[in-house]
């Protein structure tokens, strides 16, 4: 049956890797916001992700659904969706996230000598393309494979952006508004609960 993600040791290992990848910036303790050359971590509280991991997930998700004339993943709170699910139905993916995020941080260092969040937009895109096509350094990625991890975070980002707001993402009905879909969906009662829309 479902394997319980054994957090403990590997979690600490990943934190170390992340801290190293971030160029020695002190890892956030007890949920405190990290301020440093990578900027503030997104506002918690976090259930599973560390503030550093949350910042990285947010950056990746924003690449997956960038903001333009409509909000992107960051504004829609996709990282909050992911963090919440990792404490619920996605517990079984927690270990993959932990390892995958650490490997992503390493990949960014290996490709550009910088943390992912420090990269310019198009270099970030290149890193993710390398993951998607499994062209990221093989010595960094074993399990999960780069493309498997990318597929996972891509899919979860889509869920967070397009799914029901009750799970922490799709804030302010961002995607429903973008697609011109009324909500709630009962014909004759179409309206957004908030007035801003």
């Amino acid at each position, binding site marked *: *049956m*479902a394997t319980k993600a054994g957090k403990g040791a590997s979690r600490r290992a990943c934190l170390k890797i992340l801290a190293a990848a971030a160029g020695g910036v002190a890892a956030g303790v007890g949920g405190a916001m990290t301020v440093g050359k990578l900027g503030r971590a997104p506002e918690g509280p976090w259930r599973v992700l560390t503030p550093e991991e949350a910042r990285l997930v947010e950056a990746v998700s924003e*690449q*997956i*659904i*960038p903001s*333009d004339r*409509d909000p*992107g993943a960051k504004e829609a709170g996709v990282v909050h969706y992911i963090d919440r*699910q990792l404490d*619920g*139905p996605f517990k079984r993916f927690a270990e993959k996230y932990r390892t995958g995020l650490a490997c992503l941080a390493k990949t960014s260092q290996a490709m550009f000598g910088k943390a992912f969040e420090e990269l310019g937009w198009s270099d970030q*895109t290149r890193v*993710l393309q390398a993951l*998607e096509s499994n062209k990221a350094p093989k010595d960094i990625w074993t399990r999960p494979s780069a493309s498997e991890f990318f597929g996972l975070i*891509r*899919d979860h*980002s*889509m*869920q967070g952006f*397009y*799914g*029901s707001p*009750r*799970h922490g993402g799709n804030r302010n009905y961002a*995607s*429903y508004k*973008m*697609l*011109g*879909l*009324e909500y*709630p*969906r*009962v*014909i*004759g009662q*179409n309206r957004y609960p908030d007035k801003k829309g």
Partner: protein
Amino acid sequence: MANKHVNAVIVGAGAGGGVVAKVLAEAGLSVVLLERGKWHSFDDHTDDELFNQRTTVLGNAYGPDDARYCRVVENPDGSTRTVLPSEGGYNNNAACVGSGTLSYGAMGWRFMPQDFQLKTLYGRPEGSTLDDWPITYDELDHCYERAEWEIGVAGDDEGNPFAPPRKKPRPMPAFPYNKEANILIAAGKRLGWHPFAVPMLRNSIPYGGRPKCIHMRSCCGFACPINAKCGTQNTVIPAAMATGNCEVRTDAVVSEIMLDGRGKARGVKYFDIDDRLQEQTADLVVVSASATETPRLLLNSKSKLFPNGAGNNNDWVGRNLQGHCYCGANGLMDEDIYEEAGPGACVAFSDFSHGNKGLCGGAMVANEFISLPYAFTNTRPPGSARWGLAHKEHQRKYYKRTIRVMGPVQEMPVFDSRVRVDPAVKDHWGIPVTRLSGRRHPHDVEIAKFVVGKVEALLREAGAKSIWSWVPGLGGPSGGQHQAGTCRMGNDPQTSVANRYGQVHEIDNLFIADGSLNVTNGGFNPALTIMALGYWVGEYIVKEWKGGTRFRA
């Protein structure tokens, strides 16, 4: 305290089991209907796109849950993997009162007369166990009619020259077409095809004391907020309870059919809501647990006379697992064709159900249920960007401009596509779990290729610019929400599990009434046929009972 002995215990309150409960209770038999799941309503999960019965990334809204259930799937190379109910490989339908009929898309099809006689009509393809049903369409006609009237179907046969014959119209008028359907109708007619309205187990007018449909875009996969969808949970099961003869016991996980030394069923063992093992004895047992759970229960019920499981002395229990070889195509249109008029699917063509040269059967094709925003992120022409700005632009531009037409291709039964019980893996209650193995018959893929060609032609004629299609491969075992065939009915005990009345060969007081009985699964969604079989089996039991047969162990 021991449970009171009853006339009939029914396992599973889904499409088949719900109907049997009504027929038996109305005839005056005392009935206990055991269901492993619970009663559900829309409020439990509302219109959540991530947590329903169709998109299950956060779980199955209407069961089973990932914490207590799992299955084992055999990969083509013989290795195995354990799958959770919310994962595709599990081949889930549902676990709640009503089962899939609470949340289904509610297409309410009759199979065609030909669907009951494929072997006679077309011959048996090599490598298949294809057979005719032991009953004909004409024999089942009045049971379809009861299902249509007692559960509720909207539709007419206008425009469909291939419609199966009927004695009585459906009780509710057909639903109006939406915008995309009107485009497909015009295109289909130009091709010389015959469009008609999809029959729906859904209220087009107030019916059965329930209101008419309000056209939620989230319909297929969701319970209805106003109960306008007609499932067994809001029709036949309440009717059974209203007789005073039927008790519905939920959270009751049946682990075994108890068989006595003479090979008769004594009742069942089940785990109650507190995981306590209980016994429910009965004069007769009806198993309606679905095509993937009914064989599991039979195989887990071993006795001296049936060392390989109840009714399994000829090794046919669990064989011939079928679903549908679903194929179809998407097309991108130049203008918005989306209309906020759920569930979306509303027009069909039966031109390719039968009579396709060199092919054994076929499929009806219909426009598809509305794709919700997350699901749509996976609907892309091959080679398109799956993320980034290009993703977003496609989502914005084409969410309301994509037509999907698909067809449930009838599958050839294959002996080694099957349900077994796993020798090692057990569920929360310690019951050996379902193990699925086998592959499709290659002929299914041939039919699907043919049908897809027709669908592409239709979309092209409708003005779609970019069209891309899919045909399933041989894959792992088929099944899914349309699972069927694993305890098929037949006249020959050497090649079937039950007789033409769903009575298990060699065990007079053990019946099956669900999709397991289907010899073949039609080129249509199967729920109405399974409901009709519920009436068919139930009526036989009542006739025998009234004639003095007491079935007792």
